[in-house]
């Protein structure tokens, strides 16, 4: 099979699975639908692996293969092909998406075994993977946008998969709204790039074409702002929506309403990393806009800090993981923001391993505890669920940044870049380090409260706790293995140098990213030591408080110190959003919809020149709502306005 065919297969297999399950799922039965979904994922992963293997057989300079399915849209000078490009960057992504995706599909077989909506669930899940693959493989911005919107859609469908309570519906709405803000900016950025290249006579939106025309983009401006800055900024705002960064992160914690494997796949391992991927994909653009890069880095750092702070106080097992996801995504943005694209992508990959594992482990815990998600009511699960316990420990170890697991290596590299890169600074590094302490702390807090100590649930409930079936624990074990050794993908420069080992990921991605290798600074070992120390500090702190002192978080607000209480209430951000954005938008809608139908003359004309307005209002109020003559007046008023404009024009 040619490489092009393989690429197409990688994308189309999950679509076929979704279609088969979606259209005929009820016919071939619930049991089969799960196996079918897993089978297509396995096949897709196999295709992805052989495609990447094929790619590695090419010379590094020519490692970019485009598979054109057909011409999607062709409006004379703007031609968009339904094309997928496999290059080292998208290669890494498809391996993660299909690989982790496959494991989560397998896990779902067990997790969703008793759910009536299984067919629908697997259909959505396959569809999601399809769109995610479109997103990462898309050869042009519109195709990426197709995947971008598609994953959002599947995410909403899956969030709302269990819609027993109204809160889940609200969660869906929030996710919609915040993501659409981001999507709008994505579209703006896309159009501005097209505008720039079109003006110069070669309108295109293909990544390759845009990159080839980057001199045109560099010359263009929007008003006084360089177009590159404008476009990079718009795209980044789009990324903050999808990747849950300040200020558009609010939807992600609420998105945990969906089934846990969904949280693992979509809201941890794949979709939310789309923003990071996009920034990495457009790295040449960001290189032209250093100001935006700095913004990206700072937003990432602040998000990492902010979300970790909230994570310190959360008591719902999935919410803790959600905030930790936001925080880790912040790390990735910090990485790409300082120009450490490889570091960012590396963390993306390892994060997919350990965060996927954490969510699946949490799912196993919830599954075992019959739906309980409150860590204050857990504890002592260690012996009841040994597999979950050990794998969860590996993942916690990894995310806390303790050597030698994957999380340590990738996080260390980001911190290293944050300090040493030309775009980095001490302040960014410090922010990262503080976030690292908090990460280690809240993760071990979670771990301790869940698995160690004495059980804090009823005796009867505790007796019923059971380990999950093998179909769920095997994926956990595989992911635990990956979380443990994943760091070997890109050993720290110093170690690699000392042991004469290759830095696989750096070498692999080298053709994609602008060459701006940060020289191996002498402070590498010092920085690494600092990383280890802070991770240890956080870990030991958590163990001290929650294991030795057996502290249990309390519900009573009065006994909490103010910062903790604020953290637990999410810094009142939701409330602030409600007051600052949701209410104004609604109000705007009402305000502007009012004039159109309600008391037409009353409002529309009264808002016009005030002198006329006051004179009018008395009579106007007598015109009733829904009065056809009021409509006629607006119609005719419009006519007169047009004529008046023409009169002025003729003058």
């Amino acid at each position, binding site marked *: 099979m040619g490489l092009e065919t393989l690429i197409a297969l990688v994308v189309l297999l999950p679509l076929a699975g979704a279609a088969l399950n979606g259209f005929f799922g009820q016919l071939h039965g619930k049991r089969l639908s799960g196996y079918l979904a897993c089978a297509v994922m396995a096949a897709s992963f196999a295709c992805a692996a052989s495609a990447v293997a094929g790619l590695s057989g090419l010379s590094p300079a020519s490692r970019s293969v485009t598979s054109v399915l057909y011409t999607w849209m062709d409006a004379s000078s703007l031609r968009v092909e339904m094309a997928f490009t496999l290059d080292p960057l998208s290669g890494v992504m498809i391996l993660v998406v299909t690989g982790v995706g496959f494991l989560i599909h397998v896990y779902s077989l067990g997790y969703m075994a008793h759910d009536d909506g299984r067919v629908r669930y697997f259909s959505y899940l396959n569809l999601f993977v399809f769109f995610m693959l479109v997103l990462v493989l898309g050869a042009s911005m519109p195709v990426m946008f197709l995947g971008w919107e598609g994953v959002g859609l599947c995410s909403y469908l899956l969030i709302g998969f269990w819609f027993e309570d109204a809160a889940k519906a609200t969660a869906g709405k929030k996710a919609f709204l915040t993501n659409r803000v981001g999507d709008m900016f994505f579209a703006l950025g896309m159009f501005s790039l097209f505008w720039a290249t079109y003006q110069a006579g070669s309108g295109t939106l293909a990544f390759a074409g845009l990159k080839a025309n980057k001199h045109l983009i560099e010359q263009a401006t929007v008003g006084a702002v360089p177009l590159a800055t404008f476009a990079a900024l718009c795209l980044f705002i789009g990324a903050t929506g999808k990747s849950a960064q300040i200020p558009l992160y609010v939807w992600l914690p609420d998105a945990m309403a969906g089934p846990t494997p969904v949280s693992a796949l979509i809201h941890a391992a794949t979709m939310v990393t789309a923003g990071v991927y996009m920034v990495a994909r457009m790295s040449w653009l960001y290189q032209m806009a250093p100001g935006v890069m700095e913004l990206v880095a700072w937003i990432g750092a602040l998000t990492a800090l902010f979300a970790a702070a909230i994570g310190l106080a959360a008591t719902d097992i999935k919410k803790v993981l959600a905030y930790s996801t936001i925080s880790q995504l912040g790390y990735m943005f910090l990485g790409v923001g300082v120009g450490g694209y490889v570091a960012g992508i590396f963390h993306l990959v390892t994060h997919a391993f350990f965060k996927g594992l954490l969510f699946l482990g949490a799912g196993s815990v919830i599954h075992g505890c019959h739906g309980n998600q409150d860590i204050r009511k857990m504890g002592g699960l260690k012996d009841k669920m040994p597999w979950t316990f050990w794998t969860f420990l590996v993942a916690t170890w990894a995310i806390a940044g303790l050597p030698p697991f994957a999380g340590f290596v990738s996080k260390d590299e980001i911190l290293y870049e944050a300090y040493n890169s030309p775009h980095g600074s001490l302040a960014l590094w410090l922010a990262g380090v503080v976030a690292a302490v908090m990460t280690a702390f809240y993760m071990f807090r979670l771990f301790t409260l869940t698995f160690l100590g004495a059980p804090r649930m009823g005796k009867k409930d505790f007796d019923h706790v059971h380990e999950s079936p093998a179909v769920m624990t095997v994926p956990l074990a595989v992911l635990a293995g990956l979380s443990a050794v994943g760091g070997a993908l890109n050993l720290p420069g110093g170690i690699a140098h000392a042991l004469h080992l290759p830095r696989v990921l750096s070498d692999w991605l080298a053709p994609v990213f602008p060459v701006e290798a940060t020289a191996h600074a002498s402070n590498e070992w010092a920085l690494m030591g600092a990383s280890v120390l802070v991770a240890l500090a956080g870990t030991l702190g958590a163990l001290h408080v929650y294991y030795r002192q057996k502290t249990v978080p309390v519900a009573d607000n009065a006994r909490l110190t103010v910062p903790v209480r604020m953290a637990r209430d999410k810094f009142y951000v939701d409330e602030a959003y409600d007051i600052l954005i949701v209410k104004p938008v609604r109000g705007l809608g009402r305000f502007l919809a009012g004039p159109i139908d309600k008391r037409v003359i009353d409002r529309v004309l009264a808002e016009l020149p005030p002198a006329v307005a006051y*004179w*009018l209002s008395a009579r*106007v109020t*007598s*015109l009733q709502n829904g009065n056809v003559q009021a409509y006629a007046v607006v119609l*005719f008023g419009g006519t007169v306005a047009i*004529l*008046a404009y*023409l*009169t002025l024009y003729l003058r």
Partner: protein
Amino acid sequence: MLTAIVFYILATLCVVTAVLTVTLANPVTCALSLIACLMCLAGLFAQLSAGYVAILQVLVYAGAIMVLFLFVVMLLNLTREEADEGTFGTARALTSLVCVAFLLDLYVFVDAAVGTRDFTEALEGFGSLAGVGEALFSRYLVPFEVISLLLTAAVVGVVAITRRQLSVSKASEPLKVAR
């Protein structure tokens, strides 16, 4: 000179009766002044060498459409309160002002375009039945056919919308009456 006098008389009458149509309180008098207005308009058509149109104006408008109006006005037999319009308040005054603005605008455009043009002498037979008829059946054959459809649609529509009342009262035999 005579044409001018006739024109001014007809035009004045036409406008005055039009204004009366939209200002008088009683719908019956409104309808009557509208008839008067349409008659004057027929006169103006005649002056413009549109004899056929003028005749149709009298026959179709005054003869048919306005009779229909009067019929409905009488049928509904509006009570005093129903017919009463209330006072001419500020909103209406303002609306009228918008209309005046429209009129002025329109005048500016018309005056700028044809303000200085004069009529040329009309040819013999211009606007006669024969001339208009020929146009109707050759150049305007399609519109002529469309108008027949339009009338069909109107008939069907009116039957459909009023049939309901009949079927309420005479449920057994709804259609025969209407058709």
